[in-house]
């Protein structure tokens, strides 16, 4: 389990990184390496050039504005779990981060890497779709913004061109209660099924799953007060997913985690006021 040979370059600007990516069709971005390096150790990936972006300072920023927050691609999972600002203002993200891998993985793995890697069982893509975030990417022709809902195409595939890089994600003010739940074999494992539920407060809401379909999709649905009615609502939302896993156990778990995410959104102390001054 040793990786094949490659050329290694350290970028300090996004421009350089993009130019290098563009120069070699078999190049790859190296962010946290927590997904890429295992795949290379298995010799399932043989990039000829690795562009290490860890030293691009701009990508490490977390910026809170009046009604948006912008998270740089290199924000590590553990930073998200520990940042007091994130905890106070976007607690959903802090809760989510704690479910990703183990401590040592979280210390190195990055938001951007996770979004670009597009593992259908991973948390960040689903969270960003649930929050209707905007993913900012930059390529040889300049920057563009892709809504998270359009970013994901299917298992490990995204809108991102081979010479584009994810630079940041922007989340706009949301007003609703959010809940998160996931079922994994062991803490730190990829989810068997996970879900983010948003309760609009008027009997409506949204649900976004991960681990149960080829890509995350946000589905708006009714959230009736009565539990079995809600289960039916989740069930029919599940049917709307374009790349639903046909495993019936997965589907059953999907309904279970959606309900748990809904319950989580109801817990006192877990009212996800995403920004100061926001309403429940």
């Amino acid at each position, binding site marked *: *389990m*040793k*990786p*094949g*040979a490659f050329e290694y370059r350290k970028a300090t600007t996004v421009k350089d990184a993009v130019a290098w990516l563009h120069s070699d069709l078999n190049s790859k971005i190296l962010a946290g390496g927590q997904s890429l390096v*295992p795949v290379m150790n*298995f*010799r399932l990936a043989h990039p000829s050039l690795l562009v290490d972006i860890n030293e691009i300072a701009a990508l490490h920023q977390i910026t809170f504005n009046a009604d948006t927050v912008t998270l740089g691609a290199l924000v590590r999972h553990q930073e998200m779990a520990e940042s007091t600002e994130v905890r106070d203002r976007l607690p959903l993200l802090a809760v989510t981060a704690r479910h990703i891998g183990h401590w040592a993985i979280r210390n190195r793995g990055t938001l951007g890497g996770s979004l670009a890697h597009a593992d259908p069982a991973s948390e960040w893509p689903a969270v960003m779709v649930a929050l209707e975030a905007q993913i900012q990417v930059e390529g040889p022709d300049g920057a563009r913004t892709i809504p998270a809902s359009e970013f994901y195409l299917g298992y490990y595939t995204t809108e991102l061109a081979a010479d584009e890089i994810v630079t940041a994600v922007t989340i706009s003010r949301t007003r609703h209660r959010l809940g998160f739940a996931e*079922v994994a*074999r*062991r*803490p*730190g*494992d*990829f989810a*068997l099924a996970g879900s983010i539920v948003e309760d609009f407060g008027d009997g409506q809401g949204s649900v976004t799953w991960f681990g149960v379909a080829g890509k995350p999709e946000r589905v708006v649905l009714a959230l009736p007060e009565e539990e079995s009615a809600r289960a039916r609502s989740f069930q029919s939302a599940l049917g709307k997913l374009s790349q639903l896993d046909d495993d019936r*156990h997965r589907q*059953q*778990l999907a309904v*279970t*985690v959606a309900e748990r995410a809904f319950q989580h959104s109801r817990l006192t102390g877990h009212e996800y006021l995403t920004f100061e001054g926001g309403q429940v």
Partner: protein
Amino acid sequence: MTEQAMRPQFMGARVKRVEDPRLLTGQARYVDDIEVPGMLEVAFVRSPHAAAKILSMDLEAARHAPGVRAVWTFEDCPVMLWQRDTYEVGQPVLAHDEVRYVGEPIVAIIAENRYLAEDAAELVTIRYETKTPVLDMVDAIAESPRRVHPEAQNVFFHKVYASKGFDEAFNAAEHHLSETFRTTRQTAVTLEPRCTAAMLDPASGRMTIYASTQSPHRVRSDMCELLGWDENQIRVIVPEVGGGFGMKANTYPEDIIVVSAAQKLRKPVKWVSDRTESLLSDVHARDDIHEAEVAFNSDGKIVGFRDHLMADGGAYPAYPFSGAVGETSLASRVLTGPYDIPYIATTIDCTYSNKTPLGAYRGVWGPIASFVQEGLIDRVARALGKDPADIRRINMIRPDQFPYRNSAGMVYDQGSYGESMEEALKLVDYKEFRRRQDTLRHEGRYVGIGISVFVEPTAMASSEAGSVGYESVFIRIEPTGKVTAAFGLGPTGQGHETTMAQLIADQVGVNFEDVVILHGDTDSAPFGGGTGGSRSGPIGGGAALVAGREMRARLVKLAAHLLEAGEEDIELGAGKAWVAGVPDRAMTIKELAEVAYTHVKRIPEGLPIGLELVARYQPKRAVSFSNGTHIAEVEVDVLSGLIRVLNYVVVNDCGRLINPMIVEGQIQGGVAQGIGSAFLESLRYDEHGQLVTTSLMDYLLPEATEVPRITTRHLVTPSEGEGGIKGMGEGSLIGAPAALVNAVSDALAPFGAMVRQLPVLPNDVLDWVNA
């Protein structure tokens, strides 16, 4: 016991381990830490198919790749594991005409380092013609879809046994109940993967082999047998070993390649398995089916067991012992466990398949047999509407029945079967649990309790790792009065340097710190069987006691002569010999050693010069049984299918304890592995015979978050052997899976669930709940 040291000071004490400082400071050396200039490393090209004919191999590109020193196929090392006199098939160390399991080594690349070796491995192209793989053991037994080895029947081991009068008694019972139990392939997963290094000593021409093994002398013998070396030309060194659990008791094809390459290339050569190779090619275990039936009466008394035991041995019998045979044949003999079940009938079939060879994993037969035995007991209880603890009480072997011959002919020495269960029930407060269970069920929460009473045959006359029934110790008191003792054991974390020193210090009468235990070097250790089958404590420890006692006798004789006292008046302790009641008339052991080695004229007649001897110990009994009870409490989340262990109690009886701390460590580790066996670990093959669990992301091991705090109590029923010691390395893993899955069956009783497969996975739970 009277001949033992008068006041054991160290035996039974929680002595801190002497191994620890080097391990805690990162200074210990494992095989991969052995580096010599010019050392080459090996990577293997392994079969991607479960069954295929090899049509051609193109090795040219690999041969010319940078840093490559040799590219070997079977022609370069034409060694077969197994001569045809044991089994009808032999296993080529590198497959040549045909591949028979995914992961089977075909080409060895020997290069300057592992990176380069893997580069070259990618350049090898092999053309195959795939065959229909044999993957289902029941089909395989019926020779379908074909034979794995055209020259041999698929069933390579078949045995039938019935106790006298079985049919009549079995049929006469009031009730019968049957079940098919299945265990899924699992494997040991030592944290240190397998690895071997070998180099010729240019001066003497001898071969030095660094092996991560449980049995140094076994490795030496195997190399001699397979490669034609003489024993005195080979030195096997076993440095630190990062776990064994039975899996490192075998000799593997890769070991042969490494040694042979070191010989032919005249270069140091090393191979370190990576994790994917480990999961593909370390021996697997526990691929068994038991079609079992139990006959019982309305009062709960069990009359007999009938069982058809089947095991999928994989493509070849693992060398030098087949796990399939080990798992089934011993299971068939101890299937009735701690219960007085008068009749048994068993049929065993072990078959070949296109899977990785089956070998040993801690407990070998035990976790499977306990799972079947305790599963049947719980089924009887449920069928009769009785409490599972009561059914056990009714059938338990009573203390007055020892020595007890079970219906398969195994003789049990004294044990504390019923007592261990009662003690464990008290520790969990069984009645209170039942109340709590009831309340929680009304809240929609499903908790359950599972009991597993086990017997553990230890110190067997021959076991998988040790082909011998004895152990040897070479003991020497150095001229400075310090003690050195060498063993042929092969510890892999059990702390023999500590426990053996405890035993010897007591006997010889020196301080624990003054004893150094050597092991893992065939040049310094006497011939020994290695570590495995829970034999090191009772047999190795027994040998330590005998050696220490013989040395003590020598010291007493010498001291009596020099102190001018009768031998019966000499006392030994804390590095001194003195005349009883006259502490001033004393000599230190150092002074005695000076006489023994230097002022040899003062040695009395009849005593040899020097203070060294070899002692051997073979227990009189063919086997000594440890026993105990595990009780697990679990909660099953019926919506997600996840299972959490809430509480775990072990009451263990392994005779006299050498070091309770180490015993507890063994128990806790075994229970953790039991949690893996019961709920997490499974090696899965797809319909093409591809192993799909080739990383630790797929083969799930218990982590700190899965294993609860374990409460342990010791009972002490001494064995009749030296020191009253019984073995205990495997019991915890023997007892645990049964307790855990019985707890799941109990928790899900409202759904009519009864676990019949190891491990229980979330989907199984969902299926029961949905049914």
